Protein backbone atom coordinates (compact mmCIF):
# COMPACT_ATOMS: atom_id res chain seq x y z
CA UNK A 1 0.00 0.00 0.00
CA UNK A 2 1.12 3.51 -0.80
CA UNK A 3 2.52 5.29 2.29
CA UNK A 4 0.22 8.29 2.03
CA UNK A 5 -2.87 6.12 1.71
CA UNK A 6 -1.82 4.06 4.72
CA UNK A 7 -1.16 7.21 6.74
CA UNK A 8 -4.53 8.64 5.70
CA UNK A 9 -6.35 5.51 6.87
CA UNK A 10 -4.56 5.57 10.23
CA UNK A 11 -5.31 9.25 10.72
CA UNK A 12 -8.98 8.86 9.85
CA UNK A 13 -9.21 5.90 12.22
CA UNK A 14 -7.74 8.07 14.98
CA UNK A 15 -10.06 10.97 14.21
CA UNK A 16 -13.18 8.85 13.78
CA UNK A 17 -14.40 8.76 17.43
CA UNK A 18 -14.30 12.54 17.60
CA UNK A 19 -15.86 12.90 14.15
CA UNK A 20 -18.76 10.67 15.21
CA UNK A 21 -19.32 12.64 18.43
CA UNK A 22 -19.23 15.95 16.52
CA UNK A 23 -21.66 14.82 13.83
CA UNK A 24 -24.00 13.06 16.28
CA UNK A 25 -25.91 16.20 17.41
CA UNK A 26 -26.36 17.28 13.79
CA UNK A 27 -27.89 13.91 12.97
CA UNK A 28 -30.15 14.18 16.04
CA UNK A 29 -31.23 17.65 14.96
CA UNK A 30 -32.17 16.65 11.40
CA UNK A 31 -33.77 13.34 12.23
CA UNK A 32 -35.95 14.92 14.90
CA UNK A 33 -36.88 17.97 12.83
CA UNK A 34 -38.52 15.89 10.08
CA UNK A 35 -40.06 13.22 12.30
CA UNK A 36 -43.84 12.90 12.74
CA UNK A 37 -44.88 14.19 16.16
CA UNK A 38 -46.30 10.89 17.46
CA UNK A 39 -42.97 9.17 16.77
CA UNK A 40 -40.99 11.42 19.12
CA UNK A 41 -41.52 9.36 22.24
CA UNK A 42 -41.44 5.71 21.32
CA UNK A 43 -40.22 2.79 23.35
CA UNK A 44 -37.59 1.52 22.85
CA UNK A 45 -36.08 4.79 21.49
CA UNK A 46 -34.99 4.46 17.86
CA UNK A 47 -33.47 6.44 15.01
CA UNK A 48 -35.87 5.24 12.35
CA UNK A 49 -39.20 6.88 11.56
CA UNK A 50 -42.02 6.28 9.10
CA UNK A 51 -41.91 9.36 6.85
CA UNK A 52 -40.25 12.72 6.28
CA UNK A 53 -42.57 15.47 7.55
CA UNK A 54 -41.16 18.57 5.89
CA UNK A 55 -44.33 20.31 6.98
CA UNK A 56 -42.86 20.42 10.52
CA UNK A 57 -40.83 23.44 9.46
CA UNK A 58 -43.84 25.45 8.25
CA UNK A 59 -45.85 24.42 11.31
CA UNK A 60 -43.01 25.41 13.63
CA UNK A 61 -42.62 28.78 11.87
CA UNK A 62 -46.22 29.70 12.65
CA UNK A 63 -46.62 28.11 16.08
CA UNK A 64 -43.41 29.38 17.65
CA UNK A 65 -43.49 32.83 16.09
CA UNK A 66 -40.17 32.06 14.45
CA UNK A 67 -40.37 34.90 11.92
CA UNK A 68 -40.49 37.56 14.61
CA UNK A 69 -37.55 36.08 16.53
CA UNK A 70 -35.63 35.86 13.27
CA UNK A 71 -36.29 39.51 12.62
CA UNK A 72 -35.24 40.47 16.16
CA UNK A 73 -31.99 38.52 15.79
CA UNK A 74 -31.27 40.17 12.45
CA UNK A 75 -32.05 43.62 13.86
CA UNK A 76 -29.75 43.22 16.84
CA UNK A 77 -26.92 41.52 14.94
CA UNK A 78 -26.92 43.98 12.01
CA UNK A 79 -27.18 47.15 14.07
CA UNK A 80 -24.65 46.10 16.69
CA UNK A 81 -22.22 45.15 13.92
CA UNK A 82 -22.76 48.48 12.16
CA UNK A 83 -22.21 50.42 15.39
CA UNK A 84 -19.11 48.42 16.27
CA UNK A 85 -17.63 48.92 12.80
CA UNK A 86 -18.33 52.65 12.63
CA UNK A 87 -16.45 53.09 15.89
CA UNK A 88 -13.76 50.48 15.19
CA UNK A 89 -12.61 51.47 11.72
CA UNK A 90 -11.11 54.84 12.71
CA UNK A 91 -9.65 53.35 15.89
CA UNK A 92 -8.07 50.47 13.99
CA UNK A 93 -6.74 52.87 11.38
CA UNK A 94 -5.17 55.02 14.07
CA UNK A 95 -3.60 51.95 15.68
CA UNK A 96 -2.11 50.66 12.46
CA UNK A 97 -0.87 54.01 11.10
CA UNK A 98 -0.05 56.46 13.87
CA UNK A 99 2.07 56.78 16.92
CA UNK A 100 0.28 58.55 19.71
CA UNK A 101 0.65 58.99 23.46
CA UNK A 102 -0.92 56.14 25.39
CA UNK A 103 -0.89 53.71 22.47
CA UNK A 104 0.56 50.93 24.60
CA UNK A 105 -2.00 51.48 27.33
CA UNK A 106 -4.77 51.52 24.74
CA UNK A 107 -3.64 48.18 23.30
CA UNK A 108 -3.61 46.70 26.79
CA UNK A 109 -7.09 48.09 27.38
CA UNK A 110 -8.28 46.38 24.19
CA UNK A 111 -6.77 43.04 25.13
CA UNK A 112 -8.40 43.26 28.54
CA UNK A 113 -11.85 44.22 27.33
CA UNK A 114 -11.66 41.47 24.74
CA UNK A 115 -11.53 39.00 27.60
CA UNK A 116 -14.29 40.71 29.59
CA UNK A 117 -17.28 38.45 29.64
CA UNK A 118 -20.81 39.84 29.89
CA UNK A 119 -21.89 37.18 32.39
CA UNK A 120 -19.64 38.51 35.14
CA UNK A 121 -21.10 41.99 34.66
CA UNK A 122 -24.63 40.90 33.77
CA UNK A 123 -26.24 42.23 36.95
CA UNK A 124 -24.49 45.59 36.58
CA UNK A 125 -25.47 45.74 32.91
CA UNK A 126 -29.07 45.00 33.78
CA UNK A 127 -29.06 47.78 36.37
CA UNK A 128 -27.52 50.11 33.80
CA UNK A 129 -30.30 49.34 31.34
CA UNK A 130 -32.89 49.85 34.07
CA UNK A 131 -31.34 53.25 34.76
CA UNK A 132 -31.43 54.09 31.04
CA UNK A 133 -35.01 52.82 30.74
CA UNK A 134 -33.92 50.31 28.11
CA UNK A 135 -34.96 46.99 29.61
CA UNK A 136 -37.07 45.00 27.19
CA UNK A 137 -35.72 47.09 24.35
CA UNK A 138 -33.69 45.46 21.60
CA UNK A 139 -31.46 48.55 21.45
CA UNK A 140 -30.03 47.61 24.84
CA UNK A 141 -28.58 44.55 23.09
CA UNK A 142 -27.34 46.64 20.17
CA UNK A 143 -25.34 48.84 22.57
CA UNK A 144 -23.94 46.06 24.74
CA UNK A 145 -23.04 43.74 21.85
CA UNK A 146 -21.28 46.58 20.06
CA UNK A 147 -19.34 47.53 23.19
CA UNK A 148 -18.28 43.96 24.00
CA UNK A 149 -17.42 43.21 20.37
CA UNK A 150 -15.36 46.29 19.74
CA UNK A 151 -12.11 45.03 21.19
CA UNK A 152 -12.34 42.07 18.82
CA UNK A 153 -13.27 44.15 15.76
CA UNK A 154 -10.57 46.77 16.37
CA UNK A 155 -7.96 44.09 16.95
CA UNK A 156 -8.96 42.15 13.87
CA UNK A 157 -9.20 45.24 11.63
CA UNK A 158 -5.89 46.70 12.70
CA UNK A 159 -4.07 43.44 12.00
CA UNK A 160 -5.46 43.57 8.44
CA UNK A 161 -4.92 47.30 8.02
CA UNK A 162 -1.25 46.85 8.89
CA UNK A 163 -0.87 44.62 5.85
CA UNK A 164 -2.04 47.37 3.46
CA UNK A 165 1.09 49.23 2.29
CA UNK A 166 1.41 52.88 3.32
CA UNK A 167 3.23 53.79 0.10
CA UNK A 168 -0.03 54.07 -1.79
CA UNK A 169 -1.43 56.65 0.60
CA UNK A 170 1.86 58.53 0.78
CA UNK A 171 2.01 58.70 -3.02
CA UNK A 172 -1.45 60.24 -3.04
CA UNK A 173 -0.38 62.89 -0.51
CA UNK A 174 2.55 63.83 -2.74
CA UNK A 175 0.07 64.23 -5.59
CA UNK A 176 -1.71 66.77 -3.41
CA UNK A 177 -4.55 64.66 -2.03
CA UNK A 178 -5.67 65.46 1.49
CA UNK A 179 -5.49 62.79 4.19
CA UNK A 180 -9.23 62.47 4.05
CA UNK A 181 -9.32 61.93 0.27
CA UNK A 182 -6.52 59.41 0.37
CA UNK A 183 -8.33 57.61 3.15
CA UNK A 184 -11.61 57.42 1.27
CA UNK A 185 -10.27 56.87 -2.27
CA UNK A 186 -7.27 54.66 -1.66
CA UNK A 187 -7.30 53.05 1.74
CA UNK A 188 -10.94 52.13 2.26
CA UNK A 189 -11.44 50.25 -1.04
CA UNK A 190 -8.41 48.10 -0.21
CA UNK A 191 -9.76 47.49 3.28
CA UNK A 192 -13.22 46.33 2.19
CA UNK A 193 -12.49 42.57 2.37
CA UNK A 194 -11.09 42.93 5.89
CA UNK A 195 -14.10 44.93 6.97
CA UNK A 196 -16.49 42.41 5.43
CA UNK A 197 -14.89 39.48 7.23
CA UNK A 198 -14.80 41.35 10.53
CA UNK A 199 -18.43 42.36 10.09
CA UNK A 200 -19.49 38.76 9.50
CA UNK A 201 -17.81 37.53 12.68
CA UNK A 202 -19.29 40.38 14.66
CA UNK A 203 -22.70 39.49 13.20
CA UNK A 204 -22.30 35.83 14.21
CA UNK A 205 -21.35 36.86 17.75
CA UNK A 206 -24.54 38.85 18.04
CA UNK A 207 -26.56 36.09 16.42
CA UNK A 208 -25.32 33.50 18.93
CA UNK A 209 -25.34 35.60 22.11
CA UNK A 210 -27.52 34.19 24.87
CA UNK A 211 -26.93 35.56 28.37
CA UNK A 212 -27.60 39.24 27.73
CA UNK A 213 -30.58 38.54 25.48
CA UNK A 214 -32.03 36.26 28.16
CA UNK A 215 -31.57 38.98 30.78
CA UNK A 216 -32.56 42.19 29.02
CA UNK A 217 -35.52 40.96 27.00
CA UNK A 218 -38.59 40.10 29.04
CA UNK A 219 -41.46 39.94 26.55
CA UNK A 220 -41.61 37.05 24.12
CA UNK A 221 -42.33 39.39 21.19
CA UNK A 222 -38.80 40.72 21.48
CA UNK A 223 -36.95 37.41 21.99
CA UNK A 224 -33.96 36.76 19.77
CA UNK A 225 -33.59 33.27 18.29
CA UNK A 226 -31.43 31.64 21.00
CA UNK A 227 -33.76 32.85 23.76
CA UNK A 228 -36.86 31.98 21.77
CA UNK A 229 -35.65 28.41 21.22
CA UNK A 230 -34.51 28.14 24.83
CA UNK A 231 -37.95 29.28 25.96
CA UNK A 232 -39.52 26.38 24.04
CA UNK A 233 -37.52 23.99 26.20
CA UNK A 234 -37.05 25.49 29.65
CA UNK A 235 -39.63 24.95 32.34
CA UNK A 236 -42.18 23.33 30.04
CA UNK A 237 -43.97 20.18 30.94
CA UNK A 238 -44.42 19.21 27.33
CA UNK A 239 -41.73 20.18 24.85
CA UNK A 240 -42.50 20.02 21.13
CA UNK A 241 -39.08 18.65 20.31
CA UNK A 242 -39.69 18.34 16.58
CA UNK A 243 -40.44 22.08 16.46
CA UNK A 244 -37.45 22.91 18.63
CA UNK A 245 -35.12 20.92 16.40
CA UNK A 246 -36.62 22.40 13.23
CA UNK A 247 -35.97 25.83 14.75
CA UNK A 248 -32.36 25.01 15.63
CA UNK A 249 -31.76 23.73 12.10
CA UNK A 250 -33.00 27.00 10.59
CA UNK A 251 -31.22 29.16 13.14
CA UNK A 252 -27.83 27.44 13.00
CA UNK A 253 -27.17 25.83 9.63
CA UNK A 254 -26.86 28.97 7.44
CA UNK A 255 -24.61 30.65 9.99
CA UNK A 256 -22.56 27.48 10.45
CA UNK A 257 -21.90 27.27 6.71
CA UNK A 258 -20.71 30.89 6.53
CA UNK A 259 -18.60 30.45 9.64
CA UNK A 260 -16.92 27.28 8.35
CA UNK A 261 -16.18 28.97 5.07
CA UNK A 262 -14.59 32.09 6.62
CA UNK A 263 -13.07 30.50 9.66
CA UNK A 264 -9.48 30.66 8.42
CA UNK A 265 -9.64 34.47 8.41
CA UNK A 266 -10.58 34.49 12.06
CA UNK A 267 -7.26 33.02 13.10
CA UNK A 268 -5.26 35.85 11.61
CA UNK A 269 -7.10 38.64 13.31
CA UNK A 270 -7.39 37.00 16.69
CA UNK A 271 -5.21 37.65 19.64
CA UNK A 272 -2.87 34.87 18.73
CA UNK A 273 -1.78 36.94 15.76
CA UNK A 274 0.10 38.71 18.48
CA UNK A 275 1.92 35.65 19.78
CA UNK A 276 3.29 34.59 16.47
Amino acid at each position, binding site marked *: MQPKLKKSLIYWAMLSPLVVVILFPFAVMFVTAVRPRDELFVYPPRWGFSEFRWGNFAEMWVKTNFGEALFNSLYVSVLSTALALVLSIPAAYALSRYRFPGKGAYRTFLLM*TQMMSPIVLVLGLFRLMVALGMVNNLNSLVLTYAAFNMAFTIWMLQSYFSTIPRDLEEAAWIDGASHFTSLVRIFLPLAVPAMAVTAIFSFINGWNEFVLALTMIRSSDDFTLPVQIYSQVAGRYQVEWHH*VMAGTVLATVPVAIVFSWLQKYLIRGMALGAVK
Partner: protein
Amino acid sequence: MKSLNGFKPLAMIVPGLLLAMFIIGYPVLDLANTSLQEVSRFGQLRGFTGLDNFAEVFADPLFWDSLERTVIWTVTVVLGTLAISLPIAIILNDDFYGRGLARVIIMLPWAISLTMTAVVWRWALNGRAGLLNATLMDMGLMAEPIEWLAEAQLAFTVEILIGILVSIPFTTTIFLGGLSSLPQDSYEASMVDGATRWDQFRHITLPLMKPFINIAIVLNVIYVFNSLPIIWVMTEGGPANGTDILVTYLYKLAFRFGQLGKASAISLIMFGVLLLFTIIYVALVTRGEKDSAAKGDA
Protein backbone atom coordinates in the same frame (compact mmCIF):
# COMPACT_ATOMS: atom_id res chain seq x y z
CA MET B 1 4.07 58.92 10.15
CA LYS B 2 4.88 62.59 9.90
CA SER B 3 2.72 65.44 11.10
CA LEU B 4 -0.27 63.39 12.13
CA ASN B 5 1.01 62.20 15.46
CA GLY B 6 -0.81 63.62 18.43
CA PHE B 7 -4.42 64.65 18.60
CA LYS B 8 -5.92 63.31 15.40
CA PRO B 9 -5.38 59.61 16.19
CA LEU B 10 -6.76 60.21 19.67
CA ALA B 11 -9.89 61.69 18.16
CA MET B 12 -10.25 58.51 16.09
CA ILE B 13 -10.02 56.33 19.16
CA VAL B 14 -12.08 58.24 21.67
CA PRO B 15 -15.67 57.51 20.46
CA GLY B 16 -15.20 53.75 20.67
CA LEU B 17 -13.27 54.07 23.89
CA LEU B 18 -16.08 56.04 25.49
CA LEU B 19 -18.71 53.46 24.56
CA ALA B 20 -16.58 50.59 25.87
CA MET B 21 -15.73 52.42 29.08
CA PHE B 22 -19.36 53.33 29.65
CA ILE B 23 -20.85 49.89 28.95
CA ILE B 24 -18.10 47.96 30.71
CA GLY B 25 -16.97 50.52 33.27
CA TYR B 26 -20.35 51.56 34.64
CA PRO B 27 -21.45 48.01 35.57
CA VAL B 28 -18.17 47.37 37.38
CA LEU B 29 -18.57 50.51 39.49
CA ASP B 30 -22.25 49.83 40.03
CA LEU B 31 -21.53 46.25 41.15
CA ALA B 32 -18.83 47.51 43.52
CA ASN B 33 -21.27 50.01 44.99
CA THR B 34 -24.17 47.53 45.19
CA SER B 35 -22.04 44.87 46.81
CA LEU B 36 -21.43 47.18 49.78
CA GLN B 37 -25.10 48.04 50.31
CA GLU B 38 -28.23 46.44 51.55
CA VAL B 39 -30.41 45.92 48.50
CA SER B 40 -34.11 45.23 48.26
CA ARG B 41 -35.22 42.51 45.88
CA PHE B 42 -36.37 45.21 43.49
CA GLY B 43 -32.92 46.70 43.30
CA GLN B 44 -33.31 49.67 45.67
CA LEU B 45 -30.18 50.47 47.58
CA ARG B 46 -30.98 50.76 51.27
CA GLY B 47 -27.73 52.00 52.71
CA PHE B 48 -24.16 51.06 53.30
CA THR B 49 -23.55 47.79 55.10
CA GLY B 50 -19.82 47.38 54.62
CA LEU B 51 -18.74 43.86 53.81
CA ASP B 52 -21.93 42.16 55.03
CA ASN B 53 -22.78 40.85 51.57
CA PHE B 54 -19.35 39.29 51.22
CA ALA B 55 -19.63 37.76 54.69
CA GLU B 56 -22.98 36.31 53.69
CA VAL B 57 -21.48 34.86 50.51
CA PHE B 58 -18.62 33.26 52.40
CA ALA B 59 -21.03 31.78 54.93
CA ASP B 60 -23.15 30.22 52.20
CA PRO B 61 -22.43 26.51 51.64
CA LEU B 62 -23.94 26.71 48.13
CA PHE B 63 -21.29 29.29 47.22
CA TRP B 64 -18.50 26.94 48.29
CA ASP B 65 -20.12 24.00 46.47
CA SER B 66 -20.45 26.08 43.32
CA LEU B 67 -16.88 27.31 43.66
CA GLU B 68 -15.62 23.75 44.04
CA ARG B 69 -17.61 22.68 40.99
CA THR B 70 -16.33 25.69 39.04
CA VAL B 71 -12.77 24.58 39.72
CA ILE B 72 -13.55 20.99 38.70
CA TRP B 73 -15.42 22.20 35.60
CA THR B 74 -12.64 24.55 34.53
CA VAL B 75 -9.71 22.24 35.22
CA THR B 76 -11.23 19.12 33.64
CA VAL B 77 -12.60 20.91 30.59
CA VAL B 78 -9.34 22.77 29.94
CA LEU B 79 -7.09 19.75 30.49
CA GLY B 80 -9.35 17.45 28.50
CA THR B 81 -9.47 19.95 25.67
CA LEU B 82 -5.68 20.32 25.57
CA ALA B 83 -5.09 16.58 25.72
CA ILE B 84 -7.36 15.99 22.71
CA SER B 85 -6.55 19.13 20.71
CA LEU B 86 -2.78 18.73 20.55
CA PRO B 87 -2.81 15.31 18.80
CA ILE B 88 -5.68 16.49 16.57
CA ALA B 89 -3.68 19.55 15.54
CA ILE B 90 -0.61 17.42 14.83
CA ILE B 91 -2.70 15.14 12.60
CA LEU B 92 -4.38 18.06 10.82
CA ASN B 93 -1.01 19.72 10.28
CA ASP B 94 0.22 16.67 8.34
CA ASP B 95 -0.72 15.95 4.74
CA PHE B 96 -3.29 13.13 4.19
CA TYR B 97 -6.28 12.31 2.01
CA GLY B 98 -9.40 14.16 3.08
CA ARG B 99 -7.60 16.65 5.32
CA GLY B 100 -9.80 19.53 4.15
CA LEU B 101 -12.94 17.62 5.08
CA ALA B 102 -11.47 16.57 8.43
CA ARG B 103 -10.68 20.21 9.25
CA VAL B 104 -14.20 21.35 8.44
CA ILE B 105 -15.75 18.62 10.62
CA ILE B 106 -13.43 19.22 13.59
CA MET B 107 -14.20 22.95 13.47
CA LEU B 108 -18.00 22.50 13.22
CA PRO B 109 -18.85 22.81 16.95
CA TRP B 110 -17.32 26.29 16.91
CA ALA B 111 -19.78 27.38 14.24
CA ILE B 112 -22.86 26.61 16.34
CA SER B 113 -23.90 28.75 19.29
CA LEU B 114 -23.45 27.11 22.69
CA THR B 115 -27.13 27.60 23.40
CA MET B 116 -28.20 25.61 20.36
CA THR B 117 -25.61 22.90 21.01
CA ALA B 118 -26.90 22.56 24.55
CA VAL B 119 -30.54 22.44 23.40
CA VAL B 120 -29.76 19.66 20.93
CA TRP B 121 -27.83 17.65 23.52
CA ARG B 122 -30.59 18.10 26.05
CA TRP B 123 -32.90 16.33 23.63
CA ALA B 124 -30.28 13.77 22.54
CA LEU B 125 -29.79 12.84 26.21
CA ASN B 126 -33.50 12.62 26.97
CA GLY B 127 -34.03 9.78 29.41
CA ARG B 128 -36.99 8.29 27.60
CA ALA B 129 -36.57 8.77 23.88
CA GLY B 130 -33.16 10.44 23.49
CA LEU B 131 -31.20 9.24 20.51
CA LEU B 132 -28.08 8.61 22.57
CA ASN B 133 -30.05 5.95 24.40
CA ALA B 134 -31.29 4.67 21.03
CA THR B 135 -27.72 4.45 19.72
CA LEU B 136 -26.29 2.72 22.77
CA MET B 137 -29.23 0.27 22.89
CA ASP B 138 -28.89 -0.49 19.17
CA MET B 139 -25.24 -1.25 19.73
CA GLY B 140 -26.22 -3.60 22.53
CA LEU B 141 -24.25 -1.62 25.11
CA MET B 142 -27.22 -1.33 27.41
CA ALA B 143 -30.67 -2.80 27.77
CA GLU B 144 -32.55 0.06 29.42
CA PRO B 145 -32.58 3.79 28.62
CA ILE B 146 -30.52 5.93 31.02
CA GLU B 147 -31.75 9.22 32.54
CA TRP B 148 -28.56 11.14 31.72
CA LEU B 149 -29.54 14.48 33.24
CA ALA B 150 -31.64 13.39 36.21
CA GLU B 151 -28.79 12.78 38.60
CA ALA B 152 -26.30 15.56 39.37
CA GLN B 153 -23.05 13.59 39.24
CA LEU B 154 -23.81 12.03 35.86
CA ALA B 155 -25.29 15.23 34.45
CA PHE B 156 -22.22 17.21 35.47
CA THR B 157 -19.89 14.65 33.89
CA VAL B 158 -21.87 14.79 30.65
CA GLU B 159 -21.73 18.59 30.73
CA ILE B 160 -17.96 18.48 31.17
CA LEU B 161 -17.63 16.20 28.14
CA ILE B 162 -19.74 18.56 26.04
CA GLY B 163 -17.68 21.48 27.36
CA ILE B 164 -14.57 19.71 26.08
CA LEU B 165 -16.18 18.99 22.72
CA VAL B 166 -17.07 22.63 22.05
CA SER B 167 -13.64 23.89 23.18
CA ILE B 168 -11.66 21.62 20.86
CA PRO B 169 -12.01 23.68 17.62
CA PHE B 170 -10.69 26.93 19.07
CA THR B 171 -7.81 25.21 20.85
CA THR B 172 -6.91 23.13 17.79
CA THR B 173 -6.82 26.36 15.78
CA ILE B 174 -4.31 27.91 18.18
CA PHE B 175 -2.15 24.79 17.99
CA LEU B 176 -2.34 24.67 14.19
CA GLY B 177 -1.10 28.26 14.11
CA GLY B 178 1.78 27.24 16.35
CA LEU B 179 2.67 24.08 14.43
CA SER B 180 2.79 25.89 11.10
CA SER B 181 5.43 28.23 12.51
CA LEU B 182 7.79 25.45 13.68
CA PRO B 183 11.09 25.27 11.78
CA GLN B 184 11.19 22.18 9.52
CA ASP B 185 15.00 21.92 9.57
CA SER B 186 15.13 20.85 13.24
CA TYR B 187 12.97 17.86 12.34
CA GLU B 188 15.18 16.98 9.40
CA ALA B 189 18.32 17.32 11.51
CA SER B 190 16.86 15.09 14.23
CA MET B 191 15.91 12.45 11.63
CA VAL B 192 19.55 12.35 10.55
CA ASP B 193 20.48 11.76 14.19
CA GLY B 194 18.07 8.81 14.28
CA ALA B 195 15.37 10.32 16.49
CA THR B 196 12.00 8.53 16.60
CA ARG B 197 8.75 10.46 16.16
CA TRP B 198 8.14 10.28 19.89
CA ASP B 199 11.60 11.80 20.54
CA GLN B 200 10.77 14.54 18.06
CA PHE B 201 7.48 15.23 19.80
CA ARG B 202 9.04 15.40 23.25
CA HIS B 203 12.21 17.27 22.44
CA ILE B 204 11.22 19.52 19.54
CA THR B 205 7.46 19.94 19.17
CA LEU B 206 6.52 20.23 22.84
CA PRO B 207 9.17 22.81 23.87
CA LEU B 208 8.57 24.95 20.77
CA MET B 209 4.81 24.76 21.25
CA LYS B 210 5.03 25.93 24.85
CA PRO B 211 4.02 29.57 24.23
CA PHE B 212 0.98 28.38 22.28
CA ILE B 213 0.04 25.87 24.96
CA ASN B 214 0.28 28.65 27.57
CA ILE B 215 -1.98 30.93 25.56
CA ALA B 216 -4.43 28.08 24.98
CA ILE B 217 -4.56 27.34 28.71
CA VAL B 218 -5.16 30.95 29.74
CA LEU B 219 -7.76 31.70 27.05
CA ASN B 220 -9.62 28.45 27.72
CA VAL B 221 -9.62 29.05 31.46
CA ILE B 222 -11.16 32.47 30.84
CA TYR B 223 -13.82 31.15 28.45
CA VAL B 224 -14.71 27.99 30.36
CA PHE B 225 -14.84 29.54 33.82
CA ASN B 226 -17.33 32.09 32.44
CA SER B 227 -19.41 29.76 30.35
CA LEU B 228 -23.07 29.73 31.27
CA PRO B 229 -25.08 28.33 28.32
CA ILE B 230 -24.18 24.63 28.46
CA ILE B 231 -25.03 24.09 32.11
CA TRP B 232 -27.87 26.61 32.13
CA VAL B 233 -29.68 25.14 29.14
CA MET B 234 -29.11 21.48 29.99
CA THR B 235 -29.85 21.43 33.73
CA GLU B 236 -30.12 25.03 34.99
CA GLY B 237 -27.66 24.06 37.69
CA GLY B 238 -30.03 21.38 38.95
CA PRO B 239 -31.10 18.88 40.07
CA ALA B 240 -31.04 20.45 43.56
CA ASN B 241 -28.15 22.82 42.74
CA GLY B 242 -26.05 19.73 42.01
CA THR B 243 -24.56 21.11 38.77
CA ASP B 244 -24.34 24.77 39.76
CA ILE B 245 -21.10 26.53 39.00
CA LEU B 246 -20.46 30.12 40.07
CA VAL B 247 -21.98 31.72 36.96
CA THR B 248 -25.22 29.73 37.15
CA TYR B 249 -25.48 30.31 40.91
CA LEU B 250 -24.83 34.01 40.40
CA TYR B 251 -27.49 34.18 37.71
CA LYS B 252 -30.07 32.49 39.93
CA LEU B 253 -29.29 34.75 42.90
CA ALA B 254 -29.61 37.85 40.74
CA PHE B 255 -32.58 37.04 38.53
CA ARG B 256 -34.55 34.36 40.35
CA PHE B 257 -34.08 34.88 44.08
CA GLY B 258 -33.62 38.65 43.98
CA GLN B 259 -30.61 38.53 46.31
CA LEU B 260 -28.92 41.39 44.58
CA GLY B 261 -26.37 42.30 47.24
CA LYS B 262 -25.04 38.77 47.40
CA ALA B 263 -25.10 38.44 43.62
CA SER B 264 -23.10 41.68 43.27
CA ALA B 265 -20.54 40.39 45.73
CA ILE B 266 -20.12 37.15 43.76
CA SER B 267 -19.93 39.11 40.50
CA LEU B 268 -17.17 41.21 41.94
CA ILE B 269 -15.25 38.17 43.17
CA MET B 270 -15.54 36.61 39.71
CA PHE B 271 -14.53 39.88 38.11
CA GLY B 272 -11.37 39.80 40.22
CA VAL B 273 -10.55 36.24 39.12
CA LEU B 274 -11.23 37.15 35.50
CA LEU B 275 -9.00 40.21 35.82
CA LEU B 276 -6.20 38.08 37.21
CA PHE B 277 -6.31 35.67 34.27
CA THR B 278 -6.66 38.55 31.82
CA ILE B 279 -3.50 40.14 33.21
CA ILE B 280 -1.67 36.83 32.77
CA TYR B 281 -2.98 36.72 29.20
CA VAL B 282 -1.89 40.27 28.43
CA ALA B 283 1.54 39.52 29.90
CA LEU B 284 1.88 36.42 27.72
CA VAL B 285 0.83 38.30 24.59
CA THR B 286 3.14 41.22 25.31
CA ARG B 287 6.04 38.87 25.98
CA GLY B 288 5.32 37.06 22.71
CA GLU B 289 5.40 40.37 20.86
CA LYS B 290 8.72 41.31 22.43
CA ASP B 291 10.23 37.94 21.56
CA SER B 292 9.20 38.16 17.93
CA ALA B 293 10.34 41.80 17.77
CA ALA B 294 13.72 40.67 19.05
CA LYS B 295 13.86 38.09 16.30
CA GLY B 296 13.17 40.90 13.86
CA ASP B 297 9.95 39.58 12.35
CA ALA B 298 7.37 41.55 14.27
